């Protein structure tokens, strides 16, 4: 994998722009079955990352993930803050002293998502961001192992993310704030799943452009 942390500033910029662009829609989602702060939480995290992005770009991947994890950990708060902090800190651990290639990253990614599941005591089907991250990580790893082209992998991952978001709509929330609503949580997309999908779309698009 020839992609280095130098891509991180572009990734953050792309994520920032998609989250800002969809801010109102995300708020509406978190408000319907949550407390409405999800987009502000993410924006605080993204802002903090932007302040450090040129510094992070100079690190190796493991150190970069660690710095990203610690930054979002201290900036976001809420459920999503600890979950994303867990994701990135775990990515750092899993990539430490490992070869910097796609196979190795795919493995680390799946394990990091496992760590998020443990942090959230949650799994797919509970109407959370995991309904995006879990299938995306699995699809990514399978595609990499199958030796698919990067462009196809990225395309596939996006489709899986879209499906993951959509799947949350009719789920009964059993984790997160939405679970307090019981049956009333049905019929709404989960905000955290939606932002996971938006970030994945932004990331894949930047990588696609970079690897052209």
């Amino acid at each position: 994998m020839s992609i280095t942390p130098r891509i991180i500033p572009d990734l953050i910029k792309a994520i920032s722009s998609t989250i800002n662009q969809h801010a109102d829609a995300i708020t509406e989602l978190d408000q319907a079955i949550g407390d409405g702060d999800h987009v502000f939480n993410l924006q605080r995290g993204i802002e903090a990352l932007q302040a450090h992005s040129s510094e992070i770009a100079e690190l190796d991947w493991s150190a970069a993930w660690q710095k990203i994890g610690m930054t979002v950990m201290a900036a976001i708060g809420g459920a999503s803050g600890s979950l994303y902090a867990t994701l990135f800190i775990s990515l750092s651990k899993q990539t430490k002293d490992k070869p910097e290639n796609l196979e190795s990253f795919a493995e680390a990614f799946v394990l990091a998502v496992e760590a998020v599941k443990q942090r959230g005591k949650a799994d797919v089907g509970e109407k959370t961001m995991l309904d995006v991250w879990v299938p995306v990580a699995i699809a990514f790893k399978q595609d990499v192992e199958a030796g698919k082209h990067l462009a196809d992998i990225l395309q596939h991952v996006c489709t899986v993310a879209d499906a993951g978001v959509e799947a949350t709509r009719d789920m009964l929330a059993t984790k997160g704030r939405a679970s307090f609503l019981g049956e009333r949580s049905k019929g709404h997309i989960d905000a955290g799943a939606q932002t996971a999908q938006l970030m994945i779309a932004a990331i894949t698009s930047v990588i696609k452009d970079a690897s052209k």
Partner: protein
Amino acid sequence: MKKFIDSPASLLDTSLQGFAKAHADIVQLNTQPNFIYRKQSRQGKVALISGGGSGHEPLHSGFVGVGMLDAACPGQIFTSPTPDQMLMAAQAVDGGSGVLFIVKNYAGDVMNFEMAAEMLEGPNATVLVNDDVSLPKDHPIGRRGVAGTTLVEKIVGAAAEAGYDLAACKTLGDKVVQATASMGVALTSCTVPALGHPTFTLADDEIEMGVGIHGERGRETTKLVSASEIVEQLATHIQDELNPQSGQKVLLHVNGFGGTPLVELHLIYELAWQYWQKRGLLIERCLVGNFTTSLDMAGCSLTLTLLDEEMLRLWDAPVNTAALRWGI
């Protein structure tokens, strides 16, 4: 949105400055990261740290002081604080006898405190408050922590002050949680500054039964009925949960959500008092007022705690905080 505010982003930090100045005899403010901690911390004492999203004031910062918390970690409005806040607060107030975290059972709070506990070197324990009986006991993520938190912090705070060790504080905290049940009702939603409009809307004749403290909808939207009927409903949920014996000593806490006048809260107290007096309980202590608020939400909750002699004694012990003060 009508609020006294310069910008949603600066509200919390400026407000914390004001709080710390207003109570400079009792607390200090640390910034970057934010936490409120006791002016005088005591060596040899278990340190009690709580925290959660802001917007519930006086909870928790108003409970920092002798006889209650050692530090409070305020998150953004309705957003749990971050682990670095708890870590730094622990370093600031650790008296060498370990740290007890008092955490309301909300995913964000639980996970952020958990990360802090994982990173913290030295003995620590966590009491999880989950007193909200509007949710079924077997709710997948457990019941929420609501207004009962104040009682847990007061009673365990007195115990730590009295020299209980970490294990004893933890055991006591779990006991108080076990003995406590709460349920709340909202007449209106509240407006989170960053959001700029009410989180949900209710018709003029609707109320939201079984709400938490973050302006989310509750379990059920029902018709507005008389105060007596509302108290009957809330109290019955609590009664069914705790199932107290006649002659049981209890503490009755009527908590306002911020937008309900005291004249109504005292009415609610009288009605709740009658409800349990009829059932033979001995209402030995009470607390009526706005303690665990949801910004400007109109509404209230009832909390009942079954008291034993230890809890009663610790409740009465001196406390000197911004929001609770007696015996000192």
